[in-house]
C-alpha cells in the first residue's frame, strides 16, 4: 500500500507540478514531497505560486517538522531535504549534482523510509539529478514513474532516469494526475 509520493523536477517541471497539485483530490491522504530545483537566493514566491493552484496544503518545512498525510512538502531553497520516518530533516551540505536541494538525496532517504510503499516520480529537467534516486526507489521495491520525454519541456532528466532504471510507468502529465488519483 502506497504511503507517500515523492516528485523531482527541474527546468520545465513547474507547469506539470501545478497540474498535479491542482488535479489531486482534496482528500488526498498521502504526504507528497516536492524536490524541485529553484533559485537559491529567492526565499519567497515559489511556494505562493503552488499554493494558489494546489488542491492540498503546500508547506515549505522547517527542519524536524513532522510529516502529515495530505500535505505537500516543498524542499526549501538552498537546503537539501531528507525524508525521515516521522519528520523532515534539512541540510546545508555541499551541492550534489550541482543542486541544493538535490533530488537524489531526497529520493534516497524517502526510499529507505517508505521502501516498497513509495511512489517516485521524475519530471522534466535539464540535468541527471534524480536518476540515481529513482533507481533507489526501484531497488527498494517502490513504484517508479517518469514523465514521458516526448512530453517534457526538457527531456534530459526523464531520459537520464530511464537509462538507469526500468521504470513502472512512463506517463504524460495528465496520466500522472490520473495515476495519483487512483492511489487513494
Amino acid at each position, binding site marked *: 500500500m502506497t504511503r507517500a509520493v515523492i516528485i523531482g523536477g527541474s527546468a520545465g517541471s513547474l507547469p506539470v507540478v501545478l497540474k498535479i497539485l491542482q488535479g489531486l483530490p482534496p482528500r488526498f491522504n498521502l504526504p507528497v514531497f516536492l524536490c524541485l530545483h529553484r533559485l537559491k*537566493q529567492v*526565499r519567497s514566491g515559489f511556494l505562493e505560486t503552488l499554493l494558489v493552484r494546489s488542491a492540498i496544503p503546500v508547506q515549505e*518545512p*522547517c*527542519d*524536524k517538522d513532522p510529516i502529515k498525510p495530505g500535505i505537500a512538502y516543498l524542499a*526549501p531553497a*538552498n*537546503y537539501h531535504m*531528507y*525524508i*525521515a520516518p516521522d519528520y523532515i*530533516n*534539512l*541540510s*546545508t*551540505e*555541499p*551541492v550534489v549534482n550541482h543542486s541544493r536541494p538535490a533530488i537524489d*538525496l531526497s529520493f*534516497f*532517504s524517502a526510499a*529507505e523510509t517508505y521502501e*516498497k510503499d513509495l511512489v517516485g516520480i521524475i519530471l522534466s529537467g535539464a540535468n541527471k539529478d534524480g536518476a540515481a534516486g529513482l533507481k*533507489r526507489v526501484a*531497488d*527498494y*521495491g517502490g513504484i517508479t514513474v517518469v514523465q514521458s520525454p516526448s512530453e517534457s519541456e526538457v527531456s534530459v532528466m526523464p531520459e537520464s532516469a530511464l537509462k538507469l532504471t526500468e521504470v513502472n510507468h512512463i506517463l504524460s502529465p495528465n496520466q500522472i494526475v490520473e495515476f495519483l488519483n487512483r492511489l487513494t
Partner: protein
Amino acid sequence: MQVRQSDISTNDLKQLARLVRKANGPDLLHYAPFFLKQRIENFMRIQNFAGTSHLIGALMNNQIFVDRFIDELEPESTEWFRDASFWTFMREWLPQYRLKQANNNPFKIWMPGCVSGNELYSLCILLHETNLLANCTITATGLSERRIEKISRGVVSKLAIESIEHNYIQSGGIRSLPDYYDSDTGLISSHLIENIAFYSQNSLLDTKPENADMIFYRNRLLYTDAYLHQLTAGIFADTLTKGGILTVGIKEWPETRRNSRLFEPINEDERIFIKRIV
C-alpha cells in the same frame, strides 16, 4: 528487491558511534540519521572502502584515522553571507542593539560549531563595516582541531569562493571584496580575525566563554536530534548574559519547536532570539 551494498545498517551506526565515543569524539547516536549515513558513505567513497565492515576495521585502535573520520562528518557551510536578508537585518539592527546596552564593555560573541570559517568571516566583515569589530571579543570553537587551525589562519574554503562576491553584495556589503580576501593566497585579511580566540572542543561544554552577549549557531541544529537540541539550548541559555542574543538558521528552531521555553524571537523570520528572563 536489490538494496545497495553500501547501505549502512543501524547496527553499523551503533558500532561506529561506540568507536568514535571511545576516541572522545561526538555522540553520533544523536546525529540526524540520513545526514550521518550520507556523510559516512561519502567518506567510504573517498577512502575506497567497499563496505562498513572495512571502515569499522580501519577505525579500530587508530586515533588518527578516527580524527579524520570525525572531520569528514562535520558538514561545511559552503557560502559567505548565506541568507542575505539575515545579514542585511543584522547590519541595521546590531549597532542599535549595541547602543542600547548600557555599558561600553567589549561585546562578547561566541561562535560554536565552526567548520569552514565562512560564517565567521562573514560576521567579522559585518562587524568591521559597522565599526563594532574593535570592541568585540570573539570566541570561535569547533570539533575539529584541523579545521579550527585552518580557520585561524584565515583559509577560505574553495566551496565558498563561487558565492562570495554575489552574496557579499546582496548582504549589503559597502566595500569591495579584495579589501578582505586575497584570491592569490586564498586567505582572508588577517586584521579581521587577529583578535579571535580559537579552540577545538569535544563538546559544547568545553572552552565556552562566560556571559556571552551573542551566540551564532546557524544551520548546526540541522545535524543533531531533539535530545541534543534541548541540551544545546540549555547550554546557550546558561552561557548568555541577561538580554543576550541567539541566532540559528532560518529553517531551525531552538529546542526543535516554535515556542521556545528559553528564548523569545526578536526577528522570527531570521531566527534571531533574545534570552527569556525566567
